[in-house]
């Protein structure tokens, strides 16, 4: 078994062909969502917060929300959508009658999740820039960070989706995994100021924390040595999870 880029691209193009049909309707919410967050929490809640380490609350919030958008963009693709293609549409069974192999399916789907995540995160970034909340040019680094975040959450979601016995378990994934990540990953408040040291060590395990810190560094233009750890965590975890997902997808598609 092996991986071949042209075949992976054919898998990617299947999803792209479907998305092309509906992108005009799909892309609009991507612009609204950040606007709602910024008004509700940034401007609404932010009015009661005078200052966060030298910036306004809305400026504190902006970089983290870009990563959340990237996380969500990838997560929907690799949970419900993958499961439907696998179990209900049997799309991969058809691919397995062609020269496409499980590794190509995995690569194509990860690439597609990164694409979706980049559309989500990219739209969010454009809105921030329009509101003057993305300092240029330093914040442009997040354009690299968005696909990295997409990769990380694509691999996490795939490992989960390929191992669960039924579709109902996705509600756990969203409410017990993604929601806490969203709330406790430095997006809304600086963990360092609210958690004790042992809990801070625990928090280092949270996958969203690292992209958020990287985004914050890029927005502020201040890169401390910890960004190296965040960078290595994001890529390292993605790599390990990709290996696990590869084993699962081979088991699911062939026997």
């Amino acid at each position, binding site marked *: *078994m092996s991986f*071949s880029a*042209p*075949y992976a691209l*054919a898998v990617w*193009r*299947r999803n792209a*062909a*479907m998305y092309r*049909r*509906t992108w005009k309707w799909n892309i609009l919410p991507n612009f609204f969502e950040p606007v709602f967050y910024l008004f509700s929490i940034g401007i609404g809640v932010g009015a009661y917060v005078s200052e966060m380490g030298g910036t306004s609350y809305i400026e504190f919030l902006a970089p983290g929300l870009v990563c959340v958008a990237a996380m969500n963009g990838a997560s929907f693709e690799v949970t419900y959508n993958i499961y439907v293609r696998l179990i209900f*549409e*049997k*799309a991969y*069974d*058809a*691919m*397995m*009658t*062609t*020269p*496409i*192999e499980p590794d190509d399916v995995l690569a194509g789907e990860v690439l597609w999740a990164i694409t979706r995540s980049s559309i989500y995160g990219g739209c969010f970034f454009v809105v921030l820039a329009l509101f003057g909340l993305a300092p240029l040019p330093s914040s442009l680094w997040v354009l690299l960070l968005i696909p990295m975040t997409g990769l990380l959450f694509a691999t996490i979601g795939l490992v989960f989706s390929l191992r669960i016995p039924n579709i109902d378990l996705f509600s756990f994934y969203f409410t017990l995994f993604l929601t806490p990540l969203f709330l406790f990953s430095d997006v809304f408040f600086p963990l360092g100021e609210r958690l004790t040291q042992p809990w801070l060590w625990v928090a280092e395990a949270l996958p969203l924390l690292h992209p958020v810190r990287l985004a914050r560094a890029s927005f502020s233009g201040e890169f401390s040595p910890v960004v190296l750890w965040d960078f290595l965590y994001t890529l390292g975890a993605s790599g390990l999870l990709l290996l696990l997902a590869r084993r699962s997808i081979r088991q699911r*598609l*062939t*026997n």
Partner: protein
Amino acid sequence: MIPNETFAGSTIVSARSVSKRFGERVAVDNLDLEVPAQSCFGLLGPNGAGKTTTLRMIYGVTRATSGTIRVFGMDINQHLRSVRSRLGVTLQQNVLIEALSPKENLRVFGRYHLLREPELSRRAIELIDFLDLRSHADLPVRQLSGGFQRRLAIALSLMNRPELLILDEPTTGLDPAVRLVLWSRIRELRTAGTTVLITTHYMDEAQRLCDRVAIISAGRVIDAGAPADLIVNRLAPETVEFDCTPQEEAALLDGFVRSGRRLRVGQRLMLYVDDATQLIERVRRYDHGDRRPIIVRPTNLEDVFLSLTGTSLEGNS
């Protein structure tokens, strides 16, 4: 389609002592199979006989527990991509993208074989014509009837101009008119040089389409050959059917029709004979003018299967 001369007279699929176990369950048990080039070969058997598992092993998505499978002369496990690039498979369940049109479905599937424009669109149009999909070529697939969807599913598996076409129960659940159209298309492909491997539990389908068949039961080939030869060798050309009790059967037939050429299903008795005339006269004499209904018909593959396994084919599905 250009007839493929290279493979004339050779073997396209060869399976040698192939077994597949899923845990304790034996799905395929020491199976041997030879599919000659440019023929239509039928795998017959009830559901659960191991037909689909056998097909899956042939296109390499299920790995045999033991034995070897060669397709186009190549070991399937060592040359997966090159073998699959030369074959097409229509799965039992249609795999279509419902939001897209037939034309778009064909183009998406063609890319799985790395076809590019303009060949991609040209081939899609060719197949839309070949399977009479033109009137519905641009509608979303979800608006198509079952017959159209099935024809599209078959069209997909032809995108790469396969030398071997594998059809897993191609006409199950279709109305008679659509079945006739599909049979005629499958015959055209075969005439043009494509080797066709088909599974079915419709005996009429097998008899009309297949040059050779293998009857599978419980994962084993229990007989193989040309349909007409199987009928003549196993049974006899004519079948006489009527209702009678086991006592009547003994009185009427012992010493007249060999027990191997009799089959009883409930009250129904089927007798396989070379010439039905004498047998009918014997039954009439026995009935003394009280004429019971007797059916005389040509023996078919279903009779062969029944006599081999003692089970009904379609009844098990």
